[in-house]
């Protein structure tokens, strides 16, 4: 919302400076977004007088002028037809920047005659469209060197501020003035508009067939008007805030829309036929004032006569019935349109208009007839004519609201101690009424809400008004301390897991990335996602139109982007959400990572990371997150986006999947245009069982023995397909007390081992517990290990 300082001062009697006004607006909740002072742009320009204007010796159309300026008498060559002796002009000196032609003036010779500066046209100063000649100031009451902006009436700063949707009354300058007056910045002037009595019955009959959309429609006719340009001051005021003056009748409606947040519409009576009706659309088509054709539908409110649709009610009028300079009789519409229906029509048509903006936020329902009178007054003042009686069909929504207001609410919600007088002053200043301050007789007030403050509903709203106008800066400031006593954990176990997993992997070289929660639907499908319920109806692009099933989607693509930029050796991870479906419990936290191992050559020999490095990273991360890593079972059954032979899953029991890792499926890489091989993993922190810590935080006794552990090696020939883990587990299980660890150190197939078989060699670490083991005991244990392993694997000890 833009308004000029002089416009504000038509409603607010104040000595406050521009800065004070801007600050007061900000602190009252009218967030100023910009102040434009045209005078600043024109600071270099000043008033001057043309003393002589002789024909240029070498050019018929140019004149050589002597100009009396603040810098003394200057010779200026000028091409304007109206350059002549005796006129007051606007002078731009050498060195001045002329915005309208984007030139900084230099000393010049024009056809061999020196020219020092310039006399400007309105367009050259960006002070108007006129470029027929240089500006001639009217009258003779000017001073050489006077401020050009002031001389042109352009010293009126324009303030732009954000109107929050709760305050439609701020869409009128008078509403702004009221808040500033309440905030102590001046006095709200009396309203200059009164009531108008007509002299004949309104000849136009008004009907309402869509009372939900248009509950009230007031109108009247003014006969015999002359619709010329509106007065200079009104044109200036509209231009200052960026509106184009059109004609008096149209300018009046624009003025009242800005001045009173009251949109109106004017119709040329000569174009109307029969009665005027506010009704639902019926599929008709019409041309609106923006020059575009619109189809009407049955959920849009239109204004129509007996022949045709004239416009969208509360949104935009039509071209056909608009007023022109030939208009003699005018019909003025002042109606109340429903906010929601107006908003819906605006959405459906894409029309943005000042009227729609106000009606959808809600105009003052008590300012329908008064608004019509204000408009009529201005029409009579500017265009003459004779007004009919006003006529109104329907009734605007009755606004009558009283809030029971215990004064203690102020202190309860703000901590502020305010006296009754202070509270009453603020509320009455804003237009609230009631028996207050009532001499302290009652500390529960009945406060009546003014009709333009539909946002004020309950006592909290009144507290806000009081705190806002009194000043948030004057509220107490009290530090918030935690409750005394022991601190309970403030993070959930899952949050702690995520944090530890992230930092553990970063410690191991992974870069922590954050990528989009959405991806291309085709990409989602490659990772077993892309369901209908996860597709966005209004995506920002087709690359981001579906909620992701896996964080790998973006990480895999990022691997290629980084490689294309020269980062070929890369470890990326992300902890973030993935989406199985659209319910509140269908979101999962994932810890995903990718590794492209492409280490630079090293003088001592280069070591590429492979799937077993990834397995180690996953186990390390799981351990950091509190998973019982030693108990996890590895299987080769993994999701379809992994390389079927080079990936594994870590489970705790058959159903609880904790992680998958391996090479990304080469087919998927090819579809994504990513060079392989690429390693990756996905960990599911939610699948990690909660630690069942019993007996508090004690770690229990340490298991240590003073006896030297010993190692024994065994090799078994087993089926090539046998998972090594089966063998290791069997060996470990041979004697849980004595066997401390089993380390698989060799895998061999080839000469000496039958086809379809492989040899696995393990080192078993035996930890004697109470006494050193005898040779016989060791021999017995070895036999047990061999028996158990052979039984579990179907293999045989390698002889």
């Amino acid at each position: 919302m833009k308004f000029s300082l002089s416009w504000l001062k038509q409603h607010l009697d104040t000595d406050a400076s521009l800065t004070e006004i801007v600050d007061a607006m900000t602190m009252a909740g009218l967030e100023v977004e910009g102040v434009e002072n045209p005078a600043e742009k024109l600071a270099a320009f000043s008033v001057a007088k043309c003393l002589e204007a002789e024909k240029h010796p070498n050019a018929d159309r140019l004149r050589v002028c002597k100009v009396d300026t603040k810098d003394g008498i200057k010779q200026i060559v000028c091409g304007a037809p109206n350059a002549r002796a005796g006129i007051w002009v606007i002078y731009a000196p050498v060195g001045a920047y002329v915005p309208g032609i984007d030139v900084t003036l230099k000393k010049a010779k024009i056809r061999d005659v020196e020219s020092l500066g310039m006399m400007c046209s309105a367009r050259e100063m960006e002070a108007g469209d006129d470029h027929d000649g240089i500006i001639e100031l009217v009258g003779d009451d000017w001073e050489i060197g006077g401020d050009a902006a002031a001389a042109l009436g352009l010293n009126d700063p324009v303030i732009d501020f954000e109107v929050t949707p709760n305050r439609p009354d701020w869409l009128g300058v008078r509403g702004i003035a009221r808040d500033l007056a309440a905030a102590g910045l001046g006095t709200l002037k009396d309203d200059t508009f009164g009531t108008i009595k007509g002299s004949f019955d309104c000849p136009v009959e008004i009907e309402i067939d869509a009372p939900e959309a248009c509950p009230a429609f007031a109108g009247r006719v003014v006969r015999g008007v002359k619709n010329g340009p509106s007065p200079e001051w009104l044109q200036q005021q509209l231009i200052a805030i960026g509106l184009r003056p059109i004609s008096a009748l149209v300018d009046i409606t624009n003025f009242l829309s800005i001045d009173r947040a009251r949109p109106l519409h004017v119709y040329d009576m000569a174009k109307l036929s029969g009665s005027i009706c506010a009704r639902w659309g019926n599929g008709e088509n019409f041309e609106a004032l923006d020059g575009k054709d619109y189809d009407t539908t049955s959920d849009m409110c239109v204004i129509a006569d007996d022949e045709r649709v004239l416009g969208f009610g509360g949104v935009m009028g039509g071209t056909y019935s608009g007023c022109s300079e030939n208009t003699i009789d005018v019909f003025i519409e002042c109606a109340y349109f429903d906010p929601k229906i107006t908003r819906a029509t605006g959405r459906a048509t894409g029309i943005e208009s000042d009227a729609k903006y106000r009606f959808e936020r809600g105009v003052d329902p008590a300012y329908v007839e008064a608004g019509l009178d204000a408009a009529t007054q201005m029409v009579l003042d500017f265009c003459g004519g004779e007004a009919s009686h006003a006529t109104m069909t329907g009734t605007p929504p009755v606004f009558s609201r009283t809030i029971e207001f215990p004064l203690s609410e102020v202190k309860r919600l703000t901590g502020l101690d305010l006296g009754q007088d202070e509270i009453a002053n603020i509320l009455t200043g804003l237009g609230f009424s009631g028996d207050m301050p009532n001499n302290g007789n009652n500390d529960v007030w009945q406060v009546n809400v003014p009709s333009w403050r539909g946002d004020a509903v309950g006592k909290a709203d009144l507290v806000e008004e009081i705190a806002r106008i009194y000043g948030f800066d004057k509220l107490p400031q009290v530090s918030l301390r935690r409750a005394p006593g022991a601190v309970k954990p403030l993070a959930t176990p899952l949050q702690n897991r995520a944090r530890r997993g992230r930092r553990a992997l970063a410690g191991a070289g992974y870069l922590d990335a954050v990528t989009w929660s959405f991806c291309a639907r085709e990409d989602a499908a490659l990772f077993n996602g892309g369901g209908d319920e996860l597709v966005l109806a209004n995506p920002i692009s087709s690359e981001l139109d579906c909620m992701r099933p896996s964080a790998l989607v973006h990480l895999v693509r990022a691997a290629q982007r980084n490689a294309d930029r020269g980062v070929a050796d890369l470890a990326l991870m992300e902890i973030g959400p993935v989406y199985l479906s659209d319910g509140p419990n269908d979101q999962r936290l994932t810890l995903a990572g990718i590794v492209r191992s492409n280490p630079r050559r090293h003088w001592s020999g280069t070591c590429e990371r492979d799937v077993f490095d990834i397995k180690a990273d996953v186990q390390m991360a799981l351990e950091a997150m509190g998973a019982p890593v030693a108990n996890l079972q590895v299987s080769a059954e993994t999701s379809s986006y992994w390389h079927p032979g080079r990936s594994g899953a870590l489970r705790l029991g058959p159903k609880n999947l904790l992680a998958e890792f391996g090479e990304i499926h080469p087919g998927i890489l090819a579809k994504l245009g990513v060079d392989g091989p690429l390693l990756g993993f996905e960990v599911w922190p939610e699948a990690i069982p909660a630690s069942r810590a019993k007996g508090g935080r004690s770690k229990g006794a340490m298991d240590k023995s003073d006896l030297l552990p010993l190692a024994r090696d065994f090799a078994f020939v087993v089926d090539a397909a046998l998972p090594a883990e089966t063998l290791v587990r069997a060996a470990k299980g041979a004697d849980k007390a004595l066997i401390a660890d089993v380390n698989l150190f060799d895998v061999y197939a080839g000469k000496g081992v039958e086809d379809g078989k492989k040899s696995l060699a393990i080192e078993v670490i035996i930890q004697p517990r109470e006494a050193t083991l005898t040779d016989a005991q060791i021999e017995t244990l070895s036999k047990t290990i061999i028996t158990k392993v052979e039984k579990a694997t179907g293999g045989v000890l390698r002889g």
Partner: protein
Amino acid sequence: MDDTQKLENEIAAAIGAASDEAALEAVRVDALGKKGRVSLLMRGLGKMSPEERQIAGPALNALKTRLNELIATRKDVLAEAALNARLETERLDMSLPARARTQGRIHPVSQVMDEVAVIFGDMGFAVAEGPDIEDDFHNFTALNFPPGHPARDQHDTFFLNEKEDGEQMVLRTHTSPVQIRTMVAAVERAKKTGGDLEPIRIIAPGRTYRCDSDQTHTPMFHQVEGLVIDKETHMGHLKGCLADFAATFFETEVKTRFRPHHFPFTEPSAEMDIGYERKDGQILIGQGDQWMEILGSGMVHPNVLTSVGIDPDVYQGFAFGMGIDRLAMLKYGIPDLRDFFAADARWLKHYGFSPLLQPNLATGLSS
């Protein structure tokens, strides 16, 4: 000089002259071995008279001891020399590049989320979470944005495809739905136990989404929500809590200013500005005469409390929300929001944090 002395001198000279361990061993055998010269003299003791023996015996023993010491000393010298000679051949060029073992980096968003959790944790706030895909009730209606409310338009909401029953889920446009979920859960707990509503103090960091994309807006971004509900927290606490947060987060004194604003789910509502100045193209947070909006806040609207079944005449409190990404950009001088989500290794290495920099107040938030 008698013969013994002469013998000792000879052997000592031989020990000193032995150039390696083998030579030294030969000298030892020659002197002290079974048939060594000293051993032979010792053997001769048996043929002596007791008187002679009393003199010669101790002298020979002492000689043997001295020679053994000389040999041991020489042995050490030779061993050290031999070691030195070997080490001389074992020189490596320490200027050769090491085998790289690089640490990864923590994303600024993760780091700042941890920082924020630490600061509010110190004030007793727990960390709550909620889903990114929300229903209309939690994202709007319960937060006092009735259907058709113009404030909804300001949210540039992402919608999911309409379901068969006509329901249309949204991507949460703010973290505020977590307020609703937290309060609903607290009300249910109170109902179960039959006791009073427990005081609520939570922050809810997370991903949020708006259909908007330019240099300062990305379709996904991060917010942290805050909520305090009890029987006495008023707007003064809101001011204190958030001003303390700003100073702790930026690790310097920070001027703050609270301005009235409008949010449907708070009443009164305020935005907090912090002071800053520009110096040499840098933004310096804290002092200066410029103001920058940093967060929205307010006292929880009675309609919101009512919508979750909390009596607004008994309970009250405040809520706030702020952008994590923006906090990170301001504190750590990161210029472009769009780079946050590109997973560009160069950017992550440059703007990321060491994993060992786990934020806490004891060491300094970011040190």
